[in-house]
């Protein structure tokens, strides 16, 4: 870590501990972009684990920051609703300008359960067995095409490429146009004025184009005589979803795109970064590639590619001594739960052979637990197996560029050099 980064960390810590507790507002994109949110969360976990912030750009909200409290909220879907009509699953949802789309992650039972079941076969053990060799072949090709001894952006050339190929296969999306998926996914989660898009109007225009494209695919699939096994065909032919409103179809498309895209991509990038920041762990992994599976889980914890999920209280409830009122916005900060020292030993350390690496909250728990978790793990597992067949080391160059978002915790760019092949 360079000196500037260390100084920034110290400033952040001083700032986090100087504020009056009730003035702490962790929901600021800038804190995530500069990776300086950690001391704020540390302080909340210690001093006020169920914290009310009265004033933020997203309005008032509760922060749940400890692992077990997050689990309690996540598994109580009766009181803590995900429904899109109440604001959905992100802190921004429900604000005047961002009407959340209907999608199954933003629904409560029974509608949620029915729709979720329509798409789960795509990540069934049988389908993963089918996808594994395809992903492996692609990963090999991507890695073989990388320049040696030259700086390049790992995010663009590897993380995006691999995940977008997988996603294109799941949707049976025109393969040559697959980068559109990446672009749309990024636009969905982008905050206007912070890089990718400038205004909300511009964002809406792109979403319109995205919607139109997928309407075309729907029409093609719904009329097909032979039913294929891709996600769109599943939605178009299942009695439970074939009569969905166009807006609801689009909502589910958005969910599956973002869910399959950002998360795995940012964890792949995170794995290179974490191993570079922890050379002893990198060495341990190189010497014992059997640790890849455990490294993958550890990286998913360490990275926490989605920083939070939001719920809305459907009734007044006493929770850890606080009164959460009906209608209140409740934010489960997975990013903080994964650093909860009362549940996870040495949570700030990255340990590739951690004793209980699957113990993390990045996938969520309860009925909304990530449906694609095993596919994400599979892609990470394969890319690292293929990396070790080719490169002794991948070296990080400079600092990564992080995303300005309280939701997607990820990277715009990570420059690396591969000095040589094996």
């Amino acid at each position, binding site marked *: 870590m360079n000196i500037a980064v260390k100084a920034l960390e110290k400033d952040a810590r001083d700032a986090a501990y100087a504020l009056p507790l009730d003035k702490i507002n962790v929901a600021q994109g800038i804190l995530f972009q500069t990776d300086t949110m950690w001391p704020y969360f540390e302080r909340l976990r210690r001093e006020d684990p169920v914290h009310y912030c009265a004033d933020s750009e997203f309005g008032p909200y509760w922060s749940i920051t400890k692992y077990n409290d997050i689990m309690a909220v996540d*598994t109580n879907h009766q009181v803590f609703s995900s429904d899109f009509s109440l604001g959905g699953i992100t802190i921004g949802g429900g604000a005047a300008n961002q009407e959340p789309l209907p999608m199954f992650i933003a629904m409560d039972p029974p509608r949620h*359960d029915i729709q979720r*079941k329509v798409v*789960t076969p795509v990540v*069934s*053990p049988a389908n993963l067995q089918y996808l594994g060799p395809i992903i492996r072949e692609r990963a090999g090709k991507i890695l073989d095409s990388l320049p040696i001894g030259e700086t390049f952006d790992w995010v663009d050339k590897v993380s995006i490429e691999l995940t977008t190929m997988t996603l294109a296969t799941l949707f049976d999306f025109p393969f040559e146009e697959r980068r559109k998926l990446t672009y749309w996914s990024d636009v969905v989660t982008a905050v206007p004025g912070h890089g990718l898009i400038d205004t909300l109007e511009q964002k809406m225009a792109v979403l319109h184009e995205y919607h139109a494209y997928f309407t075309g695919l729907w029409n093609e699939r719904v009329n097909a005589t032979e039913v294929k096994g891709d996600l769109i065909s599943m939605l178009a032919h299942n009695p439970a979803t074939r009569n969905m409103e166009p807006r609801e179809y689009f909502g589910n498309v958005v969910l599956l795109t973002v869910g399959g895209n950002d998360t795995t991509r940012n964890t792949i990038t995170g794995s290179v970064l974490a191993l570079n920041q922890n050379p002893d762990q990198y060495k341990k992994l190189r010497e014992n590639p059997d640790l890849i599976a455990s490294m993958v889980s550890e990286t998913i914890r360490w990275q926490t590619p989605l920083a939070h999920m939001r719920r809305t209280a459907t009734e007044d409830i006493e929770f850890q001594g606080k009164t959460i009122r009906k209608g209140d916005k409740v934010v489960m900060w997975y990013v903080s739960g994964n650093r909860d020292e009362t549940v996870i030993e040495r949570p700030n350390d990255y340990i590739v052979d951690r004793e209980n690496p*699957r113990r993390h909250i990045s996938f969520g728990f*309860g009925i909304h*637990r990530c449906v694609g978790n*095993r596919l994400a793990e599979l892609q990470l597992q394969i890319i690292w197996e293929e990396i070790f067949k080719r490169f002794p080391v991948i070296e990080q160059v400079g600092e990564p560029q992080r995303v300005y978002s309280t939701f997607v915790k990820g990277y715009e760019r990570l420059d690396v050099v591969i000095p040589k092949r094996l």
Partner: protein
Amino acid sequence: MPKIKYIEHNGKEHEVEVPEGYSVMEGAVKNLIPGIDADCGGACACATCHVFVDAAFAAKIPPKTDMEETMLDFAPEIQPNSRLSCQIKVTKELDGLIVRMPHSQH
């Protein structure tokens, strides 16, 4: 102590003694038996401790709660004798219990 037999998907058997009061999931995890992930640590919130319970014991195990039903509903390869092993408490009556593991935990 009640004996429980865990049979991996590949047929490999593990017979261990599990103290009363433990869950069937804990019996596997504490004895390092592969095939049960138990990501949520027994909170009935992940379905990665899915097992198939031997017919002879089905009636000796208390019925599923709504939450267990719901979580199982999302797991692959579900059969009528599917249970979440973290929700089965080991008792004297369960001595000799046999559980089989699915292909993989999801």
